[in-house]
């Protein structure tokens, strides 16, 4: 593989890596939102019971 081929491939891989990183970070955010929804549902249930 020539130097130009390596750099061109690296440029494409960097874009892929950033998109994948974004997806991973977004998955963490979704997990946090899911946790918060569960907490709020529990809070609402407790208030209804009281």
């Amino acid at each position, binding site marked *: 593989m*020539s*130097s*130009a*081929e390596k*750099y*061109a491939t*690296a*440029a*494409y891989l*960097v*874009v892929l890596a*950033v*998109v994948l990183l*974004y997806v991973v970070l*977004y998955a963490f*955010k*979704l997990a946090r*939102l899911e946790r*918060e*929804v569960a907490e*709020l549902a529990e*809070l*609402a249930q407790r*208030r209804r019971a009281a």
Partner: protein
Amino acid sequence: MSTSLRNNQAVLLAGSAAILLLAGTALAFYWVPNAPLEGFRQRIFYYHVPIALTSYACFGWAAWKALRLLWTREQRYDLESYTAVHMGVIFGILTLVTGSIWARTSWGHWWVWGSRQLVLFLVLFLFYAAYFMLRYSVDPGPRRANLSAVYALFGVALIPVSFLAIRLAADLVHPVVFSHDVGNKLTASQFTTFLVCLAGMLTLAGTLYRNELTGKRVDARLRELREALE
């Protein structure tokens, strides 16, 4: 709009982005011949330029939403403008990284401070990076929304300067992509590949914008709900 229709649209948008980007990458590596002057490294251009144009589009979209906010005073435009700046900055980082990789293979340096095009894009990027500092230095509310909107509107003036800098700059270091010059003119295969990659990047930005906006809206509603319940 029903939730299932909205979900279908989101899946369609994400699927289109994946197909277009995969097709663009395949065309760039297996269909387009090596450019006479640039050789193999010219393939970086099929991602680098669409990414840069997409970041301009995001900043332009942010300015449009900011204008809508100032015009109508509807607070939902604040979140939309903020999300568009967020996306623009992500694509701005990618523009700088892919551009630096191209610079390294073409000029032998990761960055050339003498190139006005590079420095102007960096100024544009830093301007929008500072948007977040401004936004988070003010308490949430209409004042923050208005300040952020005015800032996003000012930033849009830098876009044509950055875009035209390649032509205005006298350094002749950064290549001009669209030119009437016969030596620099794109061939049909190069232009087709460029358009496929541009469509892919714009669709990707649209997908990320939509997901991010949905996430931020859910976040805001959950906060309101928590305040109401506690």
